[in-house]
Every structure is written in C-alpha cells, then in structure tokens.
C-alpha cells in the first residue's frame, strides 16, 4: 500500500515533465512501422505440439494482443516472432524480409519479459544502455549520445532521476517501465511484451495499461503483447487474437470479439455467457423438446449449442415459450445482480442479469428469451 502510494505520488509529480518532453521524444523514437507476417507456423516440443499451423498478419504500427488461456500457444507464438525459439515449420516475415532463420540477436526486436529480466547487478542507466553498448564498435553511439538517449527514455517511461538505482530498489511497476525503456533503446522494429502486467497488482496494472497505450501511440512501434486477461486485451489492443490449444480462434477488434464471437470457445472465453444444449428442428430451436421461441436462422438441423450473455435476455410469460428455469441462487456482481437458473429436467445451468436494485428472486420459476444469441452446431 505504501509503495503504491509512493508510486502514485511520483507519477503525478512527473506527469507535467513528461508532457514537456513528449514531442521531442516522439520525434526521436518513432520508427518505421513494420508489418509482421506469420505463415503456417508449426511448433512442436518433442512429441507435443504447441502451435498447429498459425497464420497472422500484423499491420505496421498496430497494437495487437495475443489472448488465450495458459497452454494456448500465445507465448510460444510471441517467442517465435522474437526469434527466442525457432518454428518447426512455417515462416515469419518482417516487412518483405524472411526473418525465420535469423537469430533474436539479428532480428532487432524489443522483448519485454514477464518477470522483466532486468540485469540485477546493473543500475537502471546501465540496463537501458546495455543494448547500445553491446553494438559492434562501428555502430556504437558515443557515450554522450548513449547518455542522452537513456535519459530521454527514462523521461518517456516517467522515471526521471532513477538512473542510478538498482532494479532491487524499484517497485514492480517501475521495473516494468525500465524493462520497456531497455527494449525501446535499441530502436526495435517490433516491440514484443510477454504478459507485461502479469506480475503487478490490479491498481498499478490499470495505470500501466493506459500508459503503455500512450507510449505506443507516441512511438508508433508495431507492438504485440501476450495476456490471459481479456479485459486488458480488449481495452488496450487495436486487434485481439484469441488463441486456444495452439490455434487462432478469432482475430478482430474488441467489438468483433465481444459481439460477434466466431467460435464456441470465443463465446465462452470472452465475457460471461451461458451455453445450453439445444436441437434445431425445422427452423426452430428446442430445449428438452420444448420450443423456446428462437428462430434458428440458417443453422443446420440437429443438435447445437445455444450461447447467450446474461445481460441479453428479456422476461417472457412462462406459457409463451422461452427458456424456463428454476432460480437456484443469485449474487451481486458489480452494478448488476446475477441470477442463476436451472432449466429443464436435466437442470441445465444458465445465468441472467437483473438490475441490482431489483428484489433478488429467492426461488420460483422464471422464463426468459435471449435477445441476442448464437447457435453453434455440435461438432459430433
């Protein structure tokens, strides 16, 4: 709590300074946005496959999120783009240039590690200067230029005056900023971040999120970050890549992902939703043999899964169709009250939202009809 308070005071104090230096910084740091193309990427570790033929076009200057549960292959994909691992097959293009066989050393990417991987025996200054100092003599800037650049970057990441500190003397959020400054110092063509806010507490995470967006808009780097936090992905990224079990499920804007989920996985993974096993018969949707008053649209006949969000329902008269359920519980979630219902003989669970100020139905029967929904045919 104390560290957070200190951190916030610091942030406030330097906000004005940053505003002053920002134009200078953006002119200096802005690189040419680089398209990154991933083609049919396959990666296996021994017997197990981590990626099954993934293809993705990342536009220059875009801020893109790789979102998925653990084990979905998102970090593997990021490390392949960075060159920290090599694909079993497939290609990675930086612009028009095939980078697949290049090592991470030659790809010129800025990589921010989940646990920052700051060099603990070096000061903040030396950490940020590292990438410049290890350059071959012919490309190495003079110490004076390195110094100016490091101090500029420290301003950019809002940590002026901390150049002599050691990583162990910094808070988590400050370390994250140093890690980003260090990655930006080498003028990377692409910026890659692995769970950039994963190790931070919720409050700092939200602040850094906004701040990363600002940095991205200033510097214009093509940026890819990995996260398992859907809120983070949807809020921060231009486009979100939803991954599951080594495959891409959907690529799209926050609106696309949330309002038009392409697969059952995306519907289930993003936001809250209920899924009911239904049957499509002659254009109507049946639950446990009862029509529920939903038009099946063009969906094929046979078993299917009906997805809808808890907020997208309206109450209907029990006799006029709809999904009838018996209230089994309710809980307060933020601004709304979520009611848990059990439908039909096999007690399919589903949830609906009611206003928080409405009386929580303790028991009894409620019938609802989804106002927005999606039907996915059963795989088998």
């Amino acid at each position, binding site marked *: 709590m104390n560290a957070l308070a200190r951190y916030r005071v610091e942030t406030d104090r330097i906000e004005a300074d940053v505003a002053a230096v920002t134009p200078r910084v953006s002119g200096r740091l802005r690189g040419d946005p680089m398209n990154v193309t991933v083609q049919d990427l396959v990666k296996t570790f021994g017997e197990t496959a981590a990626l099954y033929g993934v293809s993705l076009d990342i536009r220059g200057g875009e801020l893109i999120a790789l979102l998925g549960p653990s084990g979905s292959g998102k970090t593997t994909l990021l490390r392949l783009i*960075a*060159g*920290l691992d090599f694909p079993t097959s497939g290609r990675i293009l930086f612009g028009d240039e095939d980078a697949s066989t290049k*090592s*991470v*050393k030659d790809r*010129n*990417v*800025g*990589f921010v*590690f989940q*646990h920052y*991987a*700051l*060099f*603990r*025996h*070096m000061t903040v200054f030396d950490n940020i200067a*590292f*990438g410049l100092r*290890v*350059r071959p003599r012919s490309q190495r800037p003079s110490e004076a230029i390195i110094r100016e650049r490091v101090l500029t970057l420290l301003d950019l990441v809002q940590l002026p005056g901390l150049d002599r500190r050691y990583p162990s003397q910094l808070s988590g959020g400050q370390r994250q900023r140093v890690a980003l400054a*260090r*990655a930006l*110092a*080498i003028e990377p063509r692409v910026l890659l971040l692995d769970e950039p806010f994963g190790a931070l507490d919720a409050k700092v995470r939200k602040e850094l999120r906004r701040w990363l967006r600002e940095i991205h808009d200033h510097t214009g780097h093509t940026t890819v970050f990995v996260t398992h936090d859907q809120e983070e992905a949807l809020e921060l990224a231009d486009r979100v890549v939803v991954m599951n079990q080594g495959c891409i499920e959907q690529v799209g804007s926050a609106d696309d992902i949330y309002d038009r989920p392409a697969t059952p996985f995306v519907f289930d993974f993003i936001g809250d939703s209920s899924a009911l096993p239904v049957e499509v018969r002659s254009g109507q949707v049946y639950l446990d043999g009862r029509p529920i008053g939903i038009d099946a649209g063009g969906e094929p006949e046979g078993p299917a899964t009906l997805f809808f969000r808890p907020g997208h329902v309206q109450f209907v008269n029990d006799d006029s169709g709809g999904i009838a359920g018996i209230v089994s519980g309710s809980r307060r979630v933020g601004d709304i009250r979520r009611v848990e219902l059990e439908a039909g003989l096999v007690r399919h669970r589903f949830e609906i939202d009611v206003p928080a100020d409405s009386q929580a139905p303790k028991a009894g029967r409620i019938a609802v009809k989804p106002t927005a929904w999606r039907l996915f045919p059963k795989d088998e």
Partner: protein
Amino acid sequence: MSDLAAAVPARMSRQSPTTESRFTRGVLIGVAIFFLGLFLLFPLLVVFVEALRGGIGAYFAALKEPDTVSAIRLTLLVAAIAVPANLLFGLAASWAIAKYEFRGKALLITLIDLPFSVSPVISGLIYVILFGAQGYFGAWLQSYGIQIVFAVPGIVLATIFVTFPFVARELIPLMQEQGTQDEEAAISLGAGGFQTFWRVTLPNVKWGLMYGVLLCNARAMGEFGAVSVVSGHIRGQTNTMPLHIEILYNDYQWAAAFAVASLLALLALVTLIIKTILEWRFGEELASAGRQGDIR
C-alpha cells in the same frame, strides 16, 4: 483492562512448543561448546603454541629452511594451476548443465561428485596406474622423457581431481535457479555469446563463483592423501606443505613441523573469515547453492 493485563503475561510466560527448559538448553549448549573446544579449538591453539615454542626467531628460521620454502612454493604453484583449471571447468560444466538440455546430463552431475565419494588415496592411485613407470602410458611417456608421477605434473593432476567438484557444485544450483531469462534478454538486445557471458552471466554468479574458488583453493593447498600417493616425497622437489609437515614430524623436527602447520592453519582461518564475510554480505545469493548441501 486489568483483567486483560493479568491475562497477557500469563500467556506470554508459557513456552513456545519447540523451546526446552532452561536446564536442558544449558546442557545442550554446554555439550556443544565443550566438544567444539576439545576437538577443534584446542588442537588449533596447540598448533600455534607449538609453532612458537622456540620463540619468534626459531619460527621464522624454520620457515626459511630451503626444503620448507620449496614446499611452500610448490603448494602455491599447484594451487595456481589447479584452481584456475577447476574454475574454467566449473564454469563450463555449470553453464552446460544449467542452461542446456542434453543427454547424459544426470550422469555428468553424478560424475562431478565422484571425487567426493572416492577416497583420496584412490584418486592418487589412478594416476600412478595410468602414468606410472609400470602404468598404461608409462612406457610411452618415458620414451618422450615425460615424467608425470613422482613429479609436479602428477601432483597437479591429483589436486585437480580432488578439487574438481567445488566450483561446479557451487554454481550449478545458482545458475539453475537464475534460469536463462537474463541471457535471453541480453541476446534480444543484440549482445553476442561472449558479451552475454561476460556482462550478464558471470556478474550474476560472481559471489557464488568466489565462494567456490575459495573452498577449492583451501582444499588444493591442504590436500594430503591423493598428493601423497603421486608425489614420491622428494625433499625440495615434490613435497607440498602437507607432505612436508608429515616428513618434518616423522623426523622429530616438531617445531618446524608445527611452524609449517601454522601456515596451513592460518590459511584455513583466512578462508573461514572470507567465507563468513561472503555469506554475510551475499547470503541470499549463496543460499540456493548452500541448500543443495554444503560440500565440505
């Protein structure tokens, strides 16, 4: 309020479950200190008392004796070769074990420990069997006029064998705990292999490395068994300090024997002091290495 005040001390006076009575505690500590004094401190004290029995002049005269000087010189030479050799090996082995996956890794870790489980006499004997006049390579070496056993090279080899594990055992757990992220970060920033090693890996393990070198050096200078087998005990030529002490002792030159012994004991004390300082200042970093079992 007063009830509460009365209740608290009553509870406080109750012992924590793992604390014994005053008496038991006193006896345990007393026994420990008694044994420590009898078996460690007293002998150490005797070494210095005996060494200085004839006075300071006799002490330094004994140390200036040519065979003694030669023994000291040889010991320093052997340590100067064995310690850097094992430093290099230890770095290479721990780097390979901590940062890469390869077949036979478990076997390599086990093999590194071999010198600890083998009697030093056997360690020496191996080299006699290999390089001695009747050994496997004896005749071949002799035809080139190369003498290994009963000469300095044999002593160096035996010492390297005996001190093999010290640096590696210190670094392996340390490097394993640190993982490869720092190295990945360095490479992603454009550093080459050597730059990464020199600027990132080595500084990350430097205190652990110093600790290992320190222990390695203490053992290299103090090793008796293995060196005794391959040395041949030629005065002024193949006697290291420990061997020379034994010879002096067997010759009833007590004062001289203890004078040289006091030097070795001093080395042990200095090692201990530096070790303590390292542990005190960089305890956290060394802890992971110590947890794996302090080797000594």
